[in-house]
């Protein structure tokens, strides 16, 4: 059966096939082969629309890590359907566009591979029910986005943008993963549906808020919300089809999707409401304001995208208020915010996709996107102009275009919410309409900039790389289709509303029951209400501001670039690199003494403190066996010889004293009834001494240790401390013996192993394994010594690496 | 001479067989060997050589000479150690020996060195003379030379 799971996999399969066949297929055909994938998937998904509209869902599971509960479970419902259609629909258009846009690039097949991976990843994100699998696809979109941004990786700016987007989105992804893990800890399941089902049990859990914050971190970074928006403008280094597809229509909406998806989990409370709404509003106004100052058309579109994403985000935030009330006639008003969000989501994809494509066309044709070099293109590129006009006006919220409808609904939602008296809204709720209005004015202004600065005014031929001209028809078709959609949706919004948007509403408000229709009848005209007056105000103010632009542009200088978040990001990286180097060099001195100091200090500290803290130090000499005169003398000798080693000036004297230590220990082994040990110790001692002497031939005589006073003092403290801890533990053990040794068993060595020498029986039989290995240790040492001496690097022949 | 030794061994084994004990005992063997020595000594002229244990006795004599020298010179050294003031006058002198060959020379050097108060410092490259360090050359040169002569003779008896 052709399942949704398989639908996710198809782009990946295609991505795997392309590198294998790209040499055999003519360059111009690859694109068309690729085109089949999203187009077919779009059709396939669209075939489910009627079923979805009836409130059905489709679930399918492939096992991946069943023992942990991580499986590929796809879940097709209203919400994922919207995104699925966007991904495949816009995807198909973008592929067509790319075929013409990128026809000169030699690494073309890479582009398609990345694009397909992205497509599959994005479908995976929206269709996955299992949050771990969702995360998997989530990172896949970040990765493919990274690769696409750096498609021209020889350009420094491309690498910079790629790195920035990667760090921010993947970092956010890590946070989101942590949040997901917390969700699992709270609910015991990785399935979103099951998590939603157990919402009531977790809202008081200690991990609830952290989980929410972490998931939102993922969402905000992905959707370029303030202050994480900084990656998006730099992502414009990507080829324009990518910008149109990933960085406006789909990937950046993954964060929005996540918020929508998790609204039933986290929504309904004040924190969620304010974080989403607040961040959305801030993002919206900050980005729309900043869009105006941009001179690069793509950068302008990027800021506009950020701003629009903020708008959608804020709508989801406001829509979550409905959950506070539960289902009632009154609360339905607030769900309209969510509906508006979904509507604007689609609309934005259409008009912004069209705009990106046209700007790409302009760039492609004249070789620049700098507003200061553009102008007067209308006579050379009338079709492009028309599309731009439609897209911009829709974005600006002007009637006849779909943007107007959703913008009106946005204003309605803001007005509704501002009248609420929960969540402290009674105090600052009135601010929201004001912010929304101001942001809309800015939006209007930059929309005008796009149209008028590019197509009107003086045509500056000398500043362009090529003569302006319309591109091939194939390149125009995709934006035309989108532009047409912009207009068609304005006139027939409810087809979309009823069949696509309404089913999604029940995904976001599952608690309201399956039979509740949260759909909204969208009207082009609803009388002269506040919203309309606000829109009229926006247009008038916008026109005025646009015309007076050069007079008030100076205001941007009040926001110097060095305080920008971009600078913050750059400086932070620089700071991290420098500081980390300093910090690491501080303790990684390469000096053996320092490393040993850490070890001994750790030993003294950890063991010493535990000793005191646990009260383990006790001692008792009553069980000690008595000491004879001779033994005492031997102890004194050893102490004398040992300590003298520190002071003697010649290394030979040191080795001699060391020899005394060795002999004396052998005597102690005799006193302690260990003949085998005494024998071994003596021979080993002597051979070691011979080795020392043999090596001395190669080494210079000792020089005086030139440590400064402080180092010397530290050395003394560490040495004494180490010895002391050693002694204290030993005394504690001596007093704290708990069990008899097992070694009585070995006293039957004769019966068991046929040997009268117990030590030898242990070495040769009971613990022969140790002995065998020990022999190997010796042999390895021998081989090591041999090879170390015989294999010398040739003088002067510096070898950086093998061979 | 090996023939004498083998004969002696044979007698010892014969002795053991004659004793007919149920296990092998070293003491029995030793007793048999002693008996053998007596028999071989009596019969040694039949072998046409000297009695094979003659060197053994020479060795015993050497050891006795050595122990006497050792004791007397030890007393001498210890006397100096316990004296209130150290008054010794050490010195290094040259001594040419009649002995030849590695073993003879070495043995002499060892004996001389073992006797307190003197130590062989160097053997000449030709191997026929020593440089000897004496602890108190003024007092003991004559004694040392006398000991050396005694040792040389005894060594020759053993090794030649």
């Amino acid at each position: 059966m052709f399942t949704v799971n398989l639908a996710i996999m198809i782009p990946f399969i295609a991505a795997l096939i392309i590198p294998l066949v790209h040499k055999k297929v003519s360059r111009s055909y690859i694109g068309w082969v690729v085109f089949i994938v999203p187009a077919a998937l779009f059709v396939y998904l669209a075939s489910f629309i009627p079923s979805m509209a009836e409130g059905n869902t489709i679930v399918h599971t492939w096992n991946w890590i069943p023992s942990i509960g991580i499986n590929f479970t796809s879940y097709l419902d209203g919400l994922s359907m919207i995104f699925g259609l966007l991904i495949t629909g816009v995807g198909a258009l973008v592929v067509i566009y790319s075929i013409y846009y990128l026809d000169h690039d030699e690494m073309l097949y890479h582009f398609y591979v990345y694009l397909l991976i992205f497509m599959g990843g994005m479908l995976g994100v929206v269709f996955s029910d299992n949050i771990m699998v969702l995360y998997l696809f989530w990172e896949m979109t970040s990765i493919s986005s990274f690769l696409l941004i750096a498609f021209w990786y020889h350009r420094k700016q491309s690498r910079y943008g790629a790195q920035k987007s990667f760090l921010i989105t993947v970092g956010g992804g890590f946070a989101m993963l942590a949040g997901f893990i917390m969700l699992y800890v709270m609910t015991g399941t990785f399935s979103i549906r099951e998590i939603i089902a157990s919402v009531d049990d977790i809202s008081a859990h200690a991990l609830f808020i952290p989980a929410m914050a972490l998931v939102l971190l993922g969402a905000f970074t992905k959707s370029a919300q303030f202050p994480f928006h900084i990656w998006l403008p730099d992502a414009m280094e990507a080829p324009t089809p990518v910008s149109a597809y990933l960085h406006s229509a789909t990937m950046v909406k993954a964060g929005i999707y996540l918020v929508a998806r998790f609204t039933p989990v986290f929504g309904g409370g004040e924190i969620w409401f304010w974080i989403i709404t607040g961040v959305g509003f801030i993002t919206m106004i900050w980005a729309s304001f900043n869009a105006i100052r941009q001179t690069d058309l793509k950068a302008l579109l990027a800021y506009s995208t950020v701003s629009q994403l903020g708008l959608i985000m804020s709508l989801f935030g406001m829509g979550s208020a409905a959950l506070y009330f539960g289902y009632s006639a009154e609360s339905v008003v607030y769900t309209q915010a969510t509906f508006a969000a979904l509507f604007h989501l689609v609309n934005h994809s259409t008009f912004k996709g069209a705009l990106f494509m046209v700007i790409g066309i302009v760039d492609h044709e004249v070789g620049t996107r700098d507003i200061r070099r553009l102008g007067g293109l209308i006579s050379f590129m009338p079709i492009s102009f028309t599309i731009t006009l439609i897209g911009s006006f829709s974005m600006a919220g002007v009637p006849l275009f779909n943007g107007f409808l959703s913008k009106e609904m946005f204003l309605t939602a803001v007005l509704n919410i501002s009248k609420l008296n929960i969540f402290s809204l009674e105090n600052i709720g009135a601010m929201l309409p004001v912010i929304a209005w101001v942001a809309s004015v800015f939006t209007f202004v930059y929309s005008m900039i796009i149209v008028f600065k590019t197509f009107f005014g003086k045509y500056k031929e000398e500043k362009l790389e090529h003569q302006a001209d319309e591109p091939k028809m194939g390149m125009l078709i995709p934006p035309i289709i989108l532009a047409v959609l912009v207009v068609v949706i304005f006139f027939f919004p409810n087809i979309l509303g009823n069949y696509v948007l309404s089913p999604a509403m029940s995904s976001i408000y599952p608690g309201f029951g399956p039979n509740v229709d949260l759909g909204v009848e969208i009207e082009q005209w609803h009388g002269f209400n506040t919203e309309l007056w606000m829109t009229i105000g926006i247009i008038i103010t916008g026109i005025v501001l646009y015309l007076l632009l050069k007079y008030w542009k100076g205001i941007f200088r009040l926001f110097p670039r060095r305080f920008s978040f971009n600078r913050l990001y750059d400086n932070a990286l620089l700071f991290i690199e420098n500081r980390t180097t300093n910090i690491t060099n501080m303790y990684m001195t390469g000096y053996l003494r320092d490393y040993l100091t850490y070890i001994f200090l750790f030993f003294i500290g950890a063991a010493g403190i535990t000793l005191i803290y646990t009260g383990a130090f006790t001692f008792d000499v009553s069980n000690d066996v008595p000491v004879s005169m001779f033994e005492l003398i031997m102890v004194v000798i050893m102490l004398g010889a040992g300590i003298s080693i520190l002071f003697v000036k010649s290394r030979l004297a040191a080795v001699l004293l060391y020899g005394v230590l060795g002999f004396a220990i052998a005597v102690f082994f005799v006193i302690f009834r260990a003949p085998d040990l005494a024998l071994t110790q003596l021979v080993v001692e002597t051979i070691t001494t011979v080795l020392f002497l043999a090596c001395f031939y190669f080494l210079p005589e000792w020089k005086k240790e030139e440590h400064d006073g402080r180092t010397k003092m530290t050395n003394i403290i560490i040495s004494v401390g180490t010895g002391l801890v050693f002694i204290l533990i030993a005394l504690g053990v001596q007093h704290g013996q708990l069990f008899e040794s097992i070694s009585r068993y070995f006293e039957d060595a004769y019966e068991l192993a046929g040997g009268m020498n117990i030590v030898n029986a242990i070495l040769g039989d009971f613990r022969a394994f140790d002995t065998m290995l020990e022999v190997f240790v010796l042999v390895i040492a021998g081989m090591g010594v041999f090879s170390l001496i015989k294999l010398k690097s040739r003088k002067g022949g510096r070898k950086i690496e093998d061979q | 001479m090996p023939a004498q030794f083998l004969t002696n061994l044979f007698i010892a084994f014969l002795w053991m067989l004659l004793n007919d004990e149920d296990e092998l005992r070293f003491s029995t063997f030793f007793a048999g060997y002693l008996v053998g020595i007596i028999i071989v000594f009596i019969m040694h002229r039949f072998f046409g050589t000297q009695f094979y244990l003659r060197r053994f006795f020479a060795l015993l004599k050497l050891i006795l000479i050595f122990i006497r020298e050792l004791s007397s010179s030890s007393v001498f050294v210890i006397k100096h150690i316990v004296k209130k003031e150290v008054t010794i006058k050490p010195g290094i002198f040259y001594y040419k020996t009649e002995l030849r060959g590695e073993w003879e020379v070495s043995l002499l050097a060892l004996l001389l060195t073992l006797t307190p108060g003197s130590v062989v410092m160097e053997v000449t490259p030709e191997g026929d003379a020593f440089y000897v360090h004496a602890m108190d050359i003024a007092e003991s040169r004559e004694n040392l030379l006398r000991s050396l002569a005694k040792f040389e003779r005894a060594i020759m008896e053993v090794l030649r």
Partner: protein
Amino acid sequence: MIEYLVVGGLALYGIAIAVAVIRMIIGPTLPDRVLALDIIGVNLISCIAIISVMLSTTAFLDVILILGILAFISTIAFARYLERGVIIERKRDS
């Protein structure tokens, strides 16, 4: 009586060794120190023999022999080192 003599003898050897160690520490020349080590080694032979008497065991008699051998070997090694720097030669010139 016997015990006192034996224990006393052992203690005396201990003192002798201690004195030798002092000689080793103060030197002044390296051969002095080597000499001290040799003396310590030889004295230890006696010590172990006496300990064997005290414990009335023959288990350590091997140690005595070994100690004699090893004191000898180390002394030669040190002396060689003092004399020539190289303790084991590839080929002696003589």
